[in-house]
């Protein structure tokens, strides 16, 4: 039996940690770009429908399975899922995704997080002052190609150390404290930048247009897009990324909730807080400021390659137009909020790995945290050194996209059809501080699995074309590494299962 008996210090801390897990860089960089590319204001309709029919049910399912597993001393998905259907060996290996995804995503996400830390440092030093737009863009390019005297590596290592150190302090002493500091600061920075974005005035500090022109562009609905399946798939995908469902981290956090503690209202609070950050703050910063300075056409062109370029190559230059002092404040706020969004998510990725090592092999907290850091260091190194060769994107595709959908589909089938909705519904409602609409019983059983199936089938052509296209040697190496990681975790689960049986 597990000797891992940690617990959350307070309810608010738990909600902030869960919201921090969900709020990530995608809330600020991905959502506004997805909205622009998929019908502007009309995107919010499929987005909210997917949130109601897929996001919320998945949140309840993951919180409920997590708490259920936690009652029996299981805090990571292999044995949480096994607990739902102990007769079949299969689910343990499905649960491997809940550890695999977290390690693989942390491997590249920590690198991304370290960029934000470096940019905060650059703004503190006034490093972007006097640089032209090309200069700022070139800084980013030379940074990720490691041409800045290995600065990228130092910041990556610093970021990894910070994550591991906080994780080694435990749930309430590390993760919860980080969320209690990080989330309020993130909200504060976001409110300040949103205010600056929407009050940007044409003619002031070199702006060409009012910030509200950007808001108008973002929120003008193109209702024809609602009939496009691609838009619905994009909305469903965004809900996945933004809520961090299908990863195994929510189950792990929820496994430390006390057995009779509410999960229904907690899940809603954390989920809606994430939506607030995404829909209200995420839509009011990047696009209004960028359009205010660059105009609609140029921003549309820049967003074709995603929000990352706009956030890291363009926005720092635009901030410097506000003068050295205000530019530095805005830059620190922007990259500071991205850093807090990132670190509260990456901490959630470390917890399931630590929980597995502690539950199954009796490791101490510190040892399991530093082991996680070491694995991420080894696995993340190729994303740092071979970023331009496509390793980063390959990790993101297989671990950060495909695995999430597949895992979520299988876990909801297990919960609703194998564990059974009678037990499942009882589990969700146990200790609930709110009345869950009964219609959600039907939605969890039928609608959510069907939407997930549609999302998976919709992405199958892309998956098949990826498999048929082997890519360069670096990409092939990345795929082999990911396969080896999955196989290694599956073997560890097998060994852990044998140990459990031997104990019985």
């Amino acid at each position, binding site marked *: 039996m597990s000797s891992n*008996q940690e617990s959350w210090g307070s309810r608010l801390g738990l909600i902030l940690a869960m919201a921090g897990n969900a709020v990530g860089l995608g809330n600020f960089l991905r959502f506004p770009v997805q909205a622009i590319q998929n019908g502007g*204001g009309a995107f919010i309709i499929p987005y*909210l429908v997917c949130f109601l029919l897929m996001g919320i049910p998945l949140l309840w399912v993951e919180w409920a399975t997590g708490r259920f597993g936690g009652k029996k001393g299981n805090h990571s998905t292999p044995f949480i899922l096994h607990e739902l259907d102990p007769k079949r060996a299969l689910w343990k290996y499905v649960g491997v995704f809940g550890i695999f995804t977290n390690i693989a995503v942390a491997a590249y996400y920590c690198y991304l997080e370290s960029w934000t830390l470096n940019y905060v440092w650059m703004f503190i030093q006034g490093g972007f002052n006097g640089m032209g737009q090309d200069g700022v863009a070139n800084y980013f390019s030379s940074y990720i190609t490691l041409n800045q005297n290995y600065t990228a590596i130092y910041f990556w290592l610093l970021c990894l150390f910070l994550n591991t150190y906080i994780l080694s302090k435990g749930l*309430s002493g590390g993760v919860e404290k980080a969320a209690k500091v990080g989330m309020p600061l993130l909200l504060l920075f976001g409110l*300040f930048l949103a205010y600056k974005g929407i009050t940007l005035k044409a003619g002031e500090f070199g702006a060409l247009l009012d910030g509200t022109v950007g808001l108008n562009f973002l929120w003008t609905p193109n209702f024809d897009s609602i009939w496009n399946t691609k838009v619905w798939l994009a909305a469903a995908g965004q809900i996945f990324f933004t809520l961090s469902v299908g990863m195994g981290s929510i189950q792990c956090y929820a496994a430390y909730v006390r057995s009779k503690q509410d999960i229904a*209202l907690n899940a809603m*609070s954390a989920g809606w*807080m994430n939506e*607030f950050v995404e*829909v209200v703050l995420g839509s009011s910063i990047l696009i209004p400021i960028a359009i205010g300075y660059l105009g609609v056409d140029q921003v549309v062109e820049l967003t074709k390659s995603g929000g990352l370029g706009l956030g890291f190559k363009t926005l720092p230059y635009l901030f410097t137009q506000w003068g050295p002092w205000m530019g530095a404040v805005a830059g620190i706020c922007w990259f500071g909020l991205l850093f807090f969004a990132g670190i509260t998510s990456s901490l959630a990725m470390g917890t399931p790995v630590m929980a597995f090592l502690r539950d199954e092999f009796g490791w101490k907290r510190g040892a399991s945290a530093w082991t996680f850091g070491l694995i991420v260091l080894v696995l993340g190194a190729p994303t740092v050194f071979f970023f331009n060769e496509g390793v980063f994107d390959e990790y993101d595709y297989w671990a950060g996209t495909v695995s999430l959908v597949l895992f979520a589909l299988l876990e909801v089938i297990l919960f609703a059809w194998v564990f059974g909705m009678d037990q499942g519904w009882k589990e969700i409602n146990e200790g609930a501080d709110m009345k869950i609409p009964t219609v959600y019983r039907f939605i969890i059983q039928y609608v959510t699995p069907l939407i997930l199936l549609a999302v998976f089938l919709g992405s199958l052509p892309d998956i098949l074309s990826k498999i048929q296209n082997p890519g360069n040697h670096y990409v092939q190496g990345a795929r082999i590494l990911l396969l080896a990681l999955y196989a290694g975790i599956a073997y560890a689960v097998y060994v852990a299962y044998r140990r459990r049986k031997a104990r019985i």
Partner: protein
Amino acid sequence: MPVLPTLFMWLTVAVKQEFNSNRLTPSILRTMTNLALITLLLSQGIVTAFTGYFLWKVLNSPPESTENLTQDSDGDVA
């Protein structure tokens, strides 16, 4: 953190000044179409209302006992 209330106060003053100078309202009316404005207000309004409602419910639900905080295997209070 004492810095947080100070920053919040600073932000409030800035927002008040902005509305007093009446810059934002005409800018929105001049540059945004009715359709875009309605979409924005509806979307952000719904999301803000639900977020506020659920947080309010959490803050007003009975306080949970912290008595059964456990000690973890490392001996620290978790």
